[in-house]
């Protein structure tokens, strides 16, 4: 019985550092819904976005240029050759656990690959795709 408050405290303290993919998805869903009433995230749209060729960047025309055709696969940086861990939470539990990190990489990769900032709706779809990705 004494263990229960201790466990609850531990969980609460962990929550301050690591968030779940659902919490991160919720951040973007809330933001997208404020711009577009009744917005519901879609893994299918996230999947299509992942595969879309933007062709803004010669070396990285699409997300798949570095991340392969499946978010379950390890990738390789298209320019430097550096190994990249899988994007999908199912293959890499570290994914979608740090909102600042997620936002940072959306910032960089959207600018480089998509050629503009991604919208909250795109981010919500993408995060949904990665957390459900098979």
């Amino acid at each position: 019985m004494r263990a229960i408050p201790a466990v609850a405290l531990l969980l609460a303290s962990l929550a301050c550092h690591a968030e779940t993919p659902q919490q991160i998805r919720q951040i973007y869903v809330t933001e997208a819904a404020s711009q577009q009433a009744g917005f519901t995230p879609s893994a299918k749209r996230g999947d299509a976005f992942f595969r879309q060729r933007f062709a803004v960047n010669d070396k990285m025309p699409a997300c798949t240029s570095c991340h392969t055709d499946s978010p379950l696969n390890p990738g390789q940086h298209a320019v430097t050759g550096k190994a990249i861990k899988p994007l999908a939470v199912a293959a890499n539990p570290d994914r979608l656990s740090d909102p600042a990190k997620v936002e940072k990489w959306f910032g960089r990769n959207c600018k480089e690959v998509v050629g503009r900032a991604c919208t909250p709706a795109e981010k919500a779809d993408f995060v949904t795709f990665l957390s459900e990705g098979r």
Partner: protein
Amino acid sequence: MKRLILIALLGSAFPALADRLPMPANAPASFTSECSSCHIAYQPALLPANDWRKLMAGLSEHFGSDATVDRKTEQEITAFLERNAGNASRLGNAGNPPRITQTARFIRKHDEIPAKYWRDRRVKSAANCEACHPGAAKGSYSEHDISIRELRE
């Protein structure tokens, strides 16, 4: 006889020692996490302080990528690189923007590598130290553990 063996052993150990480039123990966490997301966190000794300063001042256009970090992190990483930078006269001119692979030292060390290996899909880029030096991130650039078989002596 014993002395000869010792000398021979020492002699064989030296090339390995020369290719050890350990990461300074005081590397801030920001350096490791920010600099190693697209390539290994290159050891500060690979460029002189002036070139690191130039590189850090141009992170928004970092070899075609936006690698900007917040101001505090930028100062922290720059200070670490400056503190542990390499010797400019030994490394040679790194060009502008500075590239480790353009330093005279890098070129000299790799002058026997046939051009086709730089384009090999296992290597991809000269920036990909780990393609040939599996211990690069840990500072091991020894010629004895090159991971591409054809390049081993």
